[in-house]
């Protein structure tokens, strides 16, 4: 039973972690919380349904489902990245020099807009994600995991590793770290800060979109308001790990998923959503910078 709960928790935790990366990356550079990030995740879930329906009607999903699903994920990431890029351009960039509250309010506005936009265009009722994964599950030591759970855990791990390598090893990654440390200095040494910020939003949105499609396929049920709760949970994960800190967001997400799962199994399921926030309060009281947060000292 413990193993089963750990698998359940890890699946959810990986999703939180992937979404949390978007919050933490943006915070690391711009020091503001992108409240519209949860909506990108919701858009990802919807795009997933739309593209998969497209492939189903064209017959690709019937003949080669893994290819159709992979293409769906890819296209979804592409479209949502475009959303992330555009949102930054129109809603945050003009406010870069404004007081810090202004982009925050702008983010909440975008969030409300996207929710209602999806509600009006896609309808207010739940959409069902076609169940094509079969019910093959893998049993070991009395616990079982579906193929989709394994895909989610594996893909999330891969994305996190990829992001980590990207930030540590590439030139753009180095520029991102530099921009996060000091935007003015970074621009003085020839880094195109605007471009780096765009890249950050594109990557963050792409990750959220991937999480959205995977979750839509996993639960099979999508509506326009799923971005809110997922966003709040992922934000909690980011703060838990230390906001602005990328490995912290990954750790925070996984820890949060496990706490929720174990809490509802061994204490009471009725307070499932409460555990996350209790842990958040405790962390903020004891170690305000989060589990791995040291970013405060980096800034001078």
């Amino acid at each position, binding site marked *: 039973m413990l193993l089963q709960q750990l698998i359940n928790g890890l699946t959810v935790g990986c999703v939180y972690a992937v979404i949390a990366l978007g919050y933490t990356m943006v915070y690391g550079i711009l020091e503001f919380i992108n409240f519209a990030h949860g909506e990108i995740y919701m858009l990802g879930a919807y795009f997933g349904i739309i593209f998969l329906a497209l492939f189903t009607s064209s017959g690709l999903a019937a003949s080669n489902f893994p290819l159709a699903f992979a293409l769906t994920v890819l296209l979804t990431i592409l479209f949502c990245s475009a959303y992330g890029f555009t949102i930054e351009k129109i809603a945050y960039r003009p406010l870069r020099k404004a007081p810090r509250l202004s982009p925050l309010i702008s983010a909440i506005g975008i969030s409300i807009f996207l929710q209602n936009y999806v509600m009006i265009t896609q309808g*207010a009722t739940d959409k069902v994600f076609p169940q094509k994964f079969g019910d093959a599950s893998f049993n070991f030591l009395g616990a079982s995991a579906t193929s989709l759970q394994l895909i989610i855990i594996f893909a999330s791990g891969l994305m996190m590793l990829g992001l980590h390598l990207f930030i540590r090893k590439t030139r753009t990654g180095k520029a991102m770290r530099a921009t996060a440390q000091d935007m003015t200095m970074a621009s003085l040494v020839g880094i195109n800060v605007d471009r780096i910020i765009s890249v950050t939003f594109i990557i963050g949105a792409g990750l959220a979109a991937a999480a959205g499609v995977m979750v839509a396929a996993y639960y099979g049920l999508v509506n326009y308001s799923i971005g809110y709760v997922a966003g709040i949970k992922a934000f909690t994960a980011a703060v838990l790990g230390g906001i602005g800190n990328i490995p912290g967001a990954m750790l925070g997400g996984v820890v949060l998923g496990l706490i929720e799962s174990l809490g509802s199994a061994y204490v009471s399921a009725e307070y499932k959503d409460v555990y996350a926030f209790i842990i958040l309060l405790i962390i903020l009281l004891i170690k305000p910078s989060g589990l791995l947060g040291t970013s405060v000292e980096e800034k001078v």
Partner: protein
Amino acid sequence: MKKGVLFSVCFFVIAAFLVGCGAKKDDTIKVAVAGPMTGSIAKMGSDFKNGATIAVEEWNAKGGVLGKKIEIVIGDDASDPKQAVAVANKLVNGGMAGIVGHFNSSCSIPASEVYNRAGIPMITPASTNPQLTDRGLKGVFRICGRDDQQGKVGAEFVKGKLNSKKVAVIHDKTTYGQGLADEFKKNLSAATEVVYYGGVTIGDKDFKSVLTSVKEKKPEIIYFGGVFPEAGLMVKQAREIGLSSPFMSGDGTIDPKFIEIAGEKAAEGTYLSFSPDPKNIPAAQAFIEKYKAKFGELGPYSIYAYDAMNALLTGIKEAGSADGKPVTDKLHALEFSGALGKYRFTEKGDIAGSPYVIWITKNGKFEEHWKP
């Protein structure tokens, strides 16, 4: 000067509205259909609307009621108790002669207070929580059964037919879900052990932790008090973690979307307490034909909304007035024959007799399975 123009425009707009309202009030009788027109169970709301619309169209074709045309006003509560109260106030101010609604018990109960204060009768086609009619409000009626009857039928089925010794009970913490689950639990005999009892959050998508705990207890049947989005996900996820015990739920789950969400294979063999199949009731056939031609497949509550609207309009006609008090009195005394059979309201506003039977999910369809 500019301000003056603005004011006069405003004045004319407001005046026009008032004139418009006044003129309308005279030649129509307004009745409202209230329920979740948006939100995750918006389908139930549109089923209400469709069923009631057919009733009103039939009356209007015969010349309306009290010599006036009937006009339907739609109220959307989005399954939210707060919004239900707001909508109820709006409908009361709009001069309704009566209300058909709401869907969720958690909306019907607070809204009924508002209607009661204004003296407007309400008939709900779907709210089954006992509290709705147990508070002694005179103008509150329901045309469906009560959760205590429904929970009892479920418990009788589990005791008598399935002979289950170990039962798990899960609810969604709402007035309806928890009420139903508690009634079910109360009516189980001492021979049946409740091995798990707990709540989940409505709108949540992940129930695997709860289900893993339930699986550990090895129940022979799992009773869920809640509505179809959660029920569908729960059945699906139970099968994914290898929990194969059959599920049982109430009338809130009997919707084709339940099977769509859970998947045909996972949903197979789920028991549901609900009223008898209208397809087997001769008097309902005319309505079903008409509904299918106009709106497509019948929703679970379309026919109740139709009967509720007919009861309300019959009450208005018999009372000879659209005022709340005489209509309420008339409804209490009314013996009325609807598409689902004969109705008589009890002193409380419930219908006489228990209408529930047990249904089963088979090959992606619901069918009647057992009668108490």
